[in-house]
């Protein structure tokens, strides 16, 4: 079931100033896919999620879940949260401390007055699904964070909702558990073929989990695309910078070829992915550190080659990360951890045209 959002706005008033939490947002969250709302804190992603679920009232616009209009400012439609038939996993999990695991999970069905026997079967199934068999009688306050998270997931799944919403569900787990749970969650969700909207500020989580990523910044949606599109082919500087790490260098368009664009910059001339910028316009050249390869043999071409002096190099285990200087410019690099290079060495690097991304200034 897809979620359509049209021209949604939400303002907050604080200290006499208007803060645009959502600024005329339109987006369609596709059916049976995992869609991530990604952005820095304060970008409005959680507000958007809370508007969808009905815990927050937008100021204008409309929200449609499937064929049902749940919010429309013009027609004065506002379906209350409890009648929207959604499920949500909260950042704090919101496990009710006065109930045991069984009652926490059974709650949505109890509210809908399902027969007891059916509830019991479904809870058992849900617990099995999240690998918490036999946890029914445990007190909700007496289980670990990761287990609470899974109870919250089981509770969200039990009523077989059309849509599940996730509000940074992994942010309270430690790094190792987070990675593990992320993988599990991906498996759960693809198995269920369910529509999911997922809010996070963690780009790795977004890349790993999503079918679609919507990158948000200060109340509007910057870009929507698949994880690969967002990572390799971002069209906005903000997105290129926010996802992963990127060297951003000012450049000028020199030549437009059929499938390539050529730019010049202080660090050299680069053949880049095709972008329709007019010749002579100022652009930003974006190169990710992990795509800057060491070139130890003789340099034959004069394009896409960076010659720089190593300023620092730090061993971080899986790689060596550091900076090189080319005149006044500095670039982040990431090379193999076996490298024997040291500070002060001058070396050649190469970047393939596919990894030279041009974004507007």
């Amino acid at each position, binding site marked *: 079931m897809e979620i359509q959002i049209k021209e949604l706005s939400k303002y907050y008033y604080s200290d006499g100033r208007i803060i645009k939490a959502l600024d005329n947002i339109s987006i369609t969250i596709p059916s049976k896919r995992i869609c991530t709302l990604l952005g820095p804190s304060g970008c409005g992603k*959680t507000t958007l999620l809370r508007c969808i*679920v009905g*815990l927050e009232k937008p100021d204008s616009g409309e929200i449609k879940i499937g064929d049902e209009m749940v919010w429309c400012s013009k027609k004065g439609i506002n379906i209350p949260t*409890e009648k929207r038939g959604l*499920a949500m996993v909260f950042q704090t999990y919101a496990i*009710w401390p006065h*109930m045991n695991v069984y009652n926490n999970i059974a709650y*949505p069905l109890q509210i809908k007055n399902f027969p007891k026997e059916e509830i019991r079967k479904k809870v058992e199934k849900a617990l099995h699904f999240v690998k918490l068999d036999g946890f029914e009688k445990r007190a909700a*306050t007496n289980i670990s964070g990761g287990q609470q998270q899974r109870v*919250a997931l089981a509770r969200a799944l039990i009523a077989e909702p059309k849509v599940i919403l996730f509000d940074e569900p992994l942010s309270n787990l430690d790094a190792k558990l987070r990675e593990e749970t992320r993988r599990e969650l991906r498996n759960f969700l693809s198995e269920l073929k369910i529509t999911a909207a997922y809010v996070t500020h963690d780009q790795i989580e977004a890349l790993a989990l999503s079918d679609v990523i919507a990158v948000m910044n200060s109340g509007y949606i910057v870009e929507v695309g698949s994880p690969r599109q967002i990572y390799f082919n971002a069209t906005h500087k903000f997105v290129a910078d926010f996802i992963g790490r990127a060297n951003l260098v000012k450049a000028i368009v020199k030549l437009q070829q059929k499938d390539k664009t050529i730019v010049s910059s202080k660090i050299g001339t680069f053949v880049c992915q095709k972008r329709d910028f007019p010749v002579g316009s100022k652009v930003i050249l974006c190169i990710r550190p992990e795509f800057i390869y060491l070139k130890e043999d003789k340099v034959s071409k004069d394009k896409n080659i960076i010659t720089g002096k190593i300023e620092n190099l730090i061993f971080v285990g899986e790689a060596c990360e550091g900076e090189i200087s080319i005149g006044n410019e500095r670039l982040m690099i990431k090379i193999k951890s076996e490298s024997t290079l040291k500070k002060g060495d001058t070396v050649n690097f190469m970047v393939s045209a596919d990894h030279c991304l041009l974004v507007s200034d």
Partner: protein
Amino acid sequence: MNRSFRITLILIIIVGFLTVSPVVMLIFGSFSRGLSVFGDFTLDKYIAAYTDPDLRKVINNTVIFVFGSSLVATLLSLFLAYLNNRTDVPWKFLFRIISITPMMIPHILFSVSWVLLLNPSNGIFNLILKQLFGLENSLFNIYSLGGMILVEGLLDMPIAYLIIAPAMASFDVNLEESSRVCGANTLQTLIRVTLPVLRPAILAAFTLCIVRCMASFAVPSVIGMPGRIYVLATHIYQTISVGFAIDYGKAAAIGMSVLLISIILIIIYRHLTSESEKYVTISSRGYRPAVIELKRAKMPLFFVLGLLLLILIVLPVLVLVYTSLIPYSMIPSARAFSMMNLNHWREVIKDPISILSLKNSVFLGIFGATIGVVLSIFVAYTIVRIRTKMSGILESLSFLSFSFPGIVIGVGFMWFFVRTPIYATIWALLIGYIATYLPYGIRPLSSAFIQIHKHLEESSRVFGAKPLTTMRRIIVPLLIPGITSGWILMATMFLRELSLSVVLARPGSEVMAVQILRFASDGLWGRLSALGIIMIVISTSLVALVNFIGAKLKQ
């Protein structure tokens, strides 16, 4: 023996002396023949006390009174806390006023003002109603169990509010929101999630109210006794102060069960508060709880709030001012206003005992609260920071006096002091006050210590400061808010102290509340009101002054 061990031990001795010795005296006294504590062993006092034919009625009254007023106080504060935290009712600063002001209006004056309003012979409100509707008899009789429950319930409401409101404020709203997402409507969510999560806090408030009501003496003496409705507190008071057969041993024998029940309830209360803290999960994100729009219910609920403010603060003060100015009880009218004069005030100022009681109370309030707070700082520090088994003992000891019904423990203190030179002096009152009200100082200070991160203190130690220097330079300045609120609590308690004082005060060591009680039993309402107003003005200005100093020191 290391230093922290020694500090803990010294504090245990001091606090133990303050809290355990009166209890021990009480136990000995109740088993002892004759009037002294160390007479021959006997069970006579218990037999006499518990075969008393009046006791059954007294216990009945006590149960109804205590449960009734605790219920009134808890429900009222639950309603107010919900209104304040979760709805868009206007003028929320009123809640703060309602929750702290009753501390400045002494219980005995509050009770007296209701007597002046609703007594059957010449209560002002009753007179007005009679005149308006041409009634033969008075509509309300304050001298009844209902009247006692109403007044005591209103008096204890702030205590319950101060427990329930923070629990409601720290309530994780996600718990409610997730219930809504699961398909439950507002009412279902309230019943199935909100109230159950708050249950420990609500029960804790209720339990504490029961303890306070059992210990209450102002309402039972001012409202209950004229109506011949005796509860345990007044029953004990009667045994030790009325007639020829004064029997402290018999009073102690009854007091033992009151004390025992109180101690058990305080243990339950502490269990409930720790349970309630377990439920508190402050959400990591600063979302304000979704405020419920009251819409059409807004004005009626606001009206209820205003009415409460009127009943709790405005009306009592107005009645006292009015009564202090008129020669005898009458309906406010042009005639009454033309007859107003300052005679009652003059009489109070000329009355040497009133002036003495005033001086004594102010001394006890200022000096006693200062000593009490200093002791509380050390005790709170030891409880919060030196976490050993010994400091656990200290915590339990310092909490013990929370359960002390003043009049019962007063008997214990009396026996204790009677062998010392400080008997019948103001110092006896001072020690008794500090012992009985120690938790009022320790509570705000220990929560202040919990908020001060241990690292702040440790880094001072690392840079070479001795523990006492660290205390003076780092801890005390950070503690200022805790110190001011502890001082204010203790000082206002001491200024209006009644139940312990009625036992311990002797000629020369009278205090204001006792003098007011005396005026009340003599029916000298005018003088009582004048002295009462002076009392309110003193405690209010003390609170304002200390708040001001605290704010200055914090900068």
